[in-house]
């Protein structure tokens, strides 16, 4: 079976076409393309502008995806789209597009939870059967473990997502948002060495990032006002690279910690990292060290699947479709708030 | 004649053993304290006023802390013996701890502890004969029963701030075994934290 997936919950518009050849055979990515809307440095992307971007790129990407996949509308079994969670206007734009295709091609719709899309794609690509999942992106930070037909949220960010924290700090530092603010923070952090004392906010299975963001913003302002600020121990001048380094080391340690807690509680040794922040090498490295220390392993996908994309929507949608799940036109709404554990995962036991 | 007890504490190297003696009716407290103040190496012992000790475990906990700190090279006082006295303290005031727990001219019950280390070995028989001339008092076995009769509960409660109103809703006259044990538990905690409260 073949499905087309349409994703646009944030600033990435993705179209993917996936084939499920048959039971026991792995899924095949027929095409997976994406266009990202970037705000200028120092700014974040606004819903209105993002929706505009998605509307102007939708048809182009769908056509291109069909050509690359070498499929015709006849071959498509269903049209999968991101029902939520995400930003209102961008989600709507893509939903409208999905409904249009559904009516035009006379194919049924499948509304997909964005987080579940990440999880299912991650499982498929990496082969990790039942890992604890760390889902980290600009809009989400959750530690998830599967139990009894739900992806249960074990721990999460209590205030803002870790990606949001990193993105906003990128804005503070006014570094480029292209290809992604988090990527640029990562590169800058590689040049840092001083570990500053930042608030470490893990509360049980959850964590919180607004405190550390407030703190690092203040430090950035201090640094700007006093470029000769030196580290009292090494006497080296502190740089923005050190700020990025300290921020990463601290927030990633927090994420690894809450993931480890979940693993200990559930008795699992496998971790799967999904979501845009999952493409960060340092996070993968830290998670790997933790997993190995527990006699387990970490699974991660590359930027094709980590970062928001259409193929994950196609995959998760097709998996649900095969169990009989449909989203009738009247119900093909989208919603900004859609908890991962609201989805009935009946394709797993 | 001293009734010396040699104890090998759990989780300390074999090379470090502890010798303990307990005395009632101490006659030469002032003299002994003087030896300590003068740093007389023949009297390198932990000399503790037993009226502020509630049990064997209480005393041994202080010993463990002191020896552990010795092994980690972080003694805060002159030597491991003075460190034992300091380790009884709920705070970091060393001189205060000597006043509260160490031998005073008024001390009548004495707990004496000697740590034998690789660099300063002491055999029980040597120690025993030395003590019989050095300490003028009645040697008794180092047991909870004996210690129990020596304890000044009021002082102990004051030092460790154990008079907490509404604590578990129990009457605190500290005389039942259960209440003593609970007191001991709270004391161990206070010693472990030593000043790092909040």
């Amino acid at each position, binding site marked *: 079976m073949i499905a087309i997936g349409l994703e646009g*919950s944030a600033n990435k518009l993705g179209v993917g076409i996936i084939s499920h050849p048959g039971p026991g055979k792995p899924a095949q990515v027929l095409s997976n393309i994406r266009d990202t809307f970037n705000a200028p440095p120092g700014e974040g992307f606004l819903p209105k502008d993002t929706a505009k971007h998605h509307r102007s790129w939708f048809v182009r990407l769908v056509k291109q995806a069909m050509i690359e996949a070498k499929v015709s509308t006849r071959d498509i079994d269903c049209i999968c789209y991101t029902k939520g969670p995400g930003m209102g206007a961008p989600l709507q734009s893509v939903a409208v597009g999905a409904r249009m295709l559904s009516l035009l091609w006379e194919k049924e719709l499948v509304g997909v939870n964005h987080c579940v899309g990440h999880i299912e794609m991650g499982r498929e690509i990496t082969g990790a059967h039942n890992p604890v999942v760390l889902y980290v992106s600009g809009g989400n930070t959750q530690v998830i473990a599967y139990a009894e037909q739900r992806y249960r949220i074990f721990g999460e960010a209590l205030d803002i997502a870790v990606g949001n924290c990193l993105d906003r700090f990128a804005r503070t530092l006014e570094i480029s948002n292209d290809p992604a603010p988090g990527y640029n923070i990562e590169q800058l952090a590689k040049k840092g060495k001083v570990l500053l004392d930042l608030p470490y906010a893990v509360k049980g299975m959850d964590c919180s990032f607004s405190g550390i963001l407030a703190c690092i913003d203040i430090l950035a302002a201090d640094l700007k006002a006093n470029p000769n600020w030196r580290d009292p121990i090494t006497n080296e001048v502190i740089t923005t690279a050190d700020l990025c380094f300290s921020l990463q080391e601290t927030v990633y340690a927090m994420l690894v910690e809450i993931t480890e807690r979940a693993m200990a509680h559930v008795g699992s040794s496998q971790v799967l990292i999904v979501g845009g922040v999952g493409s960060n090498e340092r996070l993968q490295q830290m998670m790997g060290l933790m997993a190995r220390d527990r006699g387990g392993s970490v699974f991660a996908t590359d930027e094709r699947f980590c970062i928001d994309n259409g193929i994950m929507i196609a995959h998760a949608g097709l998996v649900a479709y095969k169990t009989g799940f449909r989203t009738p036109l009247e119900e093909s709404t989208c919603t900004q708030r859609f908890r991962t554990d609201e989805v009935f995962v009946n394709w797993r036991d | 004649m001293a009734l010396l007890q040699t104890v090998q504490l759990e*989780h300390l190297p074999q090379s470090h053993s502890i010798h303990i003696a307990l005395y009632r009716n101490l006659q030469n407290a002032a003299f002994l304290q003087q030896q300590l103040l003068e740093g007389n190496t023949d009297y390198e012992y932990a000399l503790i006023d037993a009226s502020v000790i509630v049990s064997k475990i209480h005393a041994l906990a202080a010993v463990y802390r002191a020896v552990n700190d010795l092994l980690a090279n972080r003694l805060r006082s002159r030597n491991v013996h003075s460190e034992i006295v300091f380790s009884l303290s709920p705070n970091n005031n060393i001189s205060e701890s000597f006043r509260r727990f160490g031998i005073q001219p008024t001390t009548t019950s004495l707990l004496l502890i000697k740590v034998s280390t690789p660099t300063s070995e002491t055999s029980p028989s040597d120690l025993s004969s030395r003590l019989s001339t050095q300490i003028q008092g009645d040697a008794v076995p180092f047991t909870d029963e004996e210690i129990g009769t020596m304890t000044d509960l009021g002082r102990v409660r004051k030092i460790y701030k154990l008079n907490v109103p509404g604590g578990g809703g129990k009457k605190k006259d500290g005389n039942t075994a259960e209440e003593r044990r609970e007191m001991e538990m709270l004391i161990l*905690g206070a010693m*472990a934290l030593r000043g790092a409260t909040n």
Partner: protein
Amino acid sequence: METPTVPPEPIVSQTSSTPANLPQILTYPSKTPPQLITQGAEALLYKSTYLLPTLPCALKYRPSKPYRHPILDVRLTKHRILAEARVLVKCRKEGVPVPAVYALDESKGWLCIEWIEGEVVRIRLNEWLRRRKEAGTEEGSEEEELVDLMGRIGSAVGKMHGVGIVHGDLTTSNLMLRPWAKGVMNGHSSEDGKGILEGEIVLIDFGLASQSTADEDRAVDLYVLERAFGSTHPRAESLLKEMLTAYGKSFKGANVVLKKLEDVRMRGRKRSMLG
């Protein structure tokens, strides 16, 4: 499977009981060798003895974490050992059922506390549920034991909150059931086969606890426990209200916390989720 004097949880990972995971003090001799009880996320727990072979203790050791920056690691370890000890001492002083603190060494990363006999609620609860499933007992029937347990949990948590401590990691793995003291049955029956949920609740693992009287913090504490039930014992979730009712009676101001809990639950669901 009656209440054995066996470790409360099975050893999780064999590869980790290497010397690298033993604090130095446990490498010194003792009459009985230390026994690894559990490897949690943050620390290893050993059963050993303190001072004398007759005094069992639990030794919590926080090894350094390879993934953390060394400076961050040392800072966190020290802070957590001391914070946990402080909280335990305060609780014990006020009569909250927790292990007593025996000794600690924050630079070496260990904390030595009173050994509590018994097992964690998580294990007992799963066993109880399993037995009922096996016996074909209908869900929702004959649940007095569970109702009673939930009540005891609510009371213990309430008592802790009442003295200004918030646990920070309330899960069913951090609640122990200690056998009632001899002669103290508190009206509980002890028929053979039943009684698996019996015992005094003892709160353990205060590694993330803090001193707080804020309703928000207390509500989050309860929320974490709720979610823990939801995640690992979904079949017991329906009886959470029994726990909360007992909590509501446990200290003055508990009802305000219960109100706050509703907010926390809603907030959990309305958190903005983008991309």
